[in-house]
């Protein structure tokens, strides 16, 4: 429970800093994680497997997952979740770049690690259907309390969630 234990203003500062970093630093051209270079450290790391892509809503979720040190594949940062009420449609997210990437690199498995909210589940279901023709799709399945934000989940829970991922049908 990292961010949850911090005072509110500190969390606010942290996320402001992240947002500022994003506009100054720029994004990885491959996975859209925050990066000063055209390709981020994770994408450049040759020890990471190209067979798996883990899809997250934003860089904060990626950082939370990286802290578990369990996952050895690559990521794809969507930049948000589908939400008609907020005017966020799939075109505003890194969806087509994901499909292209999976198709081009013949990714063996895509793991959807989106929060189990209405928006997270909608995005997961939508992506699962699009990705089905290209690859195997699974999602982190349990261990996350309903309604909890992914970035707040503690490492143990996330590790369990990664192990317990299930194939989506």
């Amino acid at each position, binding site marked *: 429970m990292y961010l949850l234990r911090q005072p509110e203003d500190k969390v606010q500062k942290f996320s402001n800093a992240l947002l500022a970093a994003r506009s100054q630093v720029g994004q990885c051209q491959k996975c859209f994680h925050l990066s000063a270079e055209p390709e981020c450290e994770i994408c450049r790391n040759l020890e990471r497997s190209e067979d798996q892509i883990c899809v997250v809503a934003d860089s904060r979720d990626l950082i939370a997952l990286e802290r578990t040190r369990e996952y050895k594949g690559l990521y794809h940062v969507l930049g948000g979740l*589908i939400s*008609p*009420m907020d005017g966020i449609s799939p075109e505003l997210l890194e969806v087509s770049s994901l499909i292209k990437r999976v198709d081009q690199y013949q990714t063996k498995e895509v793991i959807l690690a989106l929060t189990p909210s*209405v928006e997270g*589940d*909608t995005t997961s*279901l*939508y992506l699962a*259907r699009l990705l089905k023709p290209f690859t195997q799709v699974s999602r982190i399945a349990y261990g996350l309390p309903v309604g909890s934000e992914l970035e707040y989940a503690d490492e143990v829970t996330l590790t369990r969630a990664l192990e317990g991922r299930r194939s989506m049908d």
Partner: protein
Amino acid sequence: MGLTEKRLLIIGRNGAGKSNLLEAVEVLGSLRSHRSGNDQDLINWGEKRAVLRAVADNQDNLELELRRKGGRQARRNEKLLARQLDFLGPLRCVGFSALDLGLVRQEPAVRRHWLDRVVMQLEPVYSDLITRFNKLLRQRSQLWRNWAHSSSQERNSLLDAFDVQMALVSTRIHRRRGRALRRLEPLAAIWQERLSQGRENLVLDYLPGSCLEGEEEEESWRLSIENQLMAQRVDEERLGSCKIGPHRDEVEFLLNGLPARRFGSAGQQRTLVLALKLAELELVGELYGEPPLLLLDDVLAELDQMRQLLLLEAVGEDHQCLVSATHLDLFEGEWKRNSQVLEAEFLMGK
């Protein structure tokens, strides 16, 4: 403030804060208020937050912090709880306010809201289902508006993603609502019979807003609802509203076979509400092995002498009661025995 007697009578003019006190107790007991559902109303003007505190009979120290910006923090014995559900239990209560008296004759949404509160007593997790369903409904209808002119293929795949979730959540809501009514019905029927001196037979009829065919089984209902959602999309595009789902549920109260909403007299409708509340009180007590706290908000004075006495008889000595009214003389004499009286003017500023 301590409770020394079985009954606390809170007397004061309107706006003196009586209802706020009862609402605070209800929120502490159930994390919900049936008056507003809005935390803002419990926070003093100009303040950023409000803290509700209570010590329950089992010495549990309950503390709930409400913030104007939204969000709550629940503490039990000074420990911050990660799940608010862990807060429920020590202070179980059933609320009955003057607003409930319109239950039978008002629009269906009022009865759905009432039923939801009963289900939440039985299964607190149910509130997550309702929150989720309402969110789905709002997102889905916004989707129709946003994508009115875009390609129907794109819109349909998004609708599919929503419908899969809607069907599952709807199934779970329908099942729980039906189940709660079946548990409540026999108890309510006995009370109705007693309150009407054996003249009225009560049936609670659940009319679900989705067509639920066949066995009550999650998978078959879910698939059937998914198909119904899909089939009504043409109408939905034209009318702009979704016609399938628990938001179209209705509960019909039948007295001797006739809908009480249309055919019941005002007196019969009142008796019916009283019977439903007594049944809820009994059900909750049965379920948790402990009589819940009864909160009577401005309602007692609305009942005639006979119904006041029947209610008192039913409540007996088991239940602790918090009762609010504008004047002490509105109470039937028996209610004042073994009671602690609080003048509501003193509530302000505390």
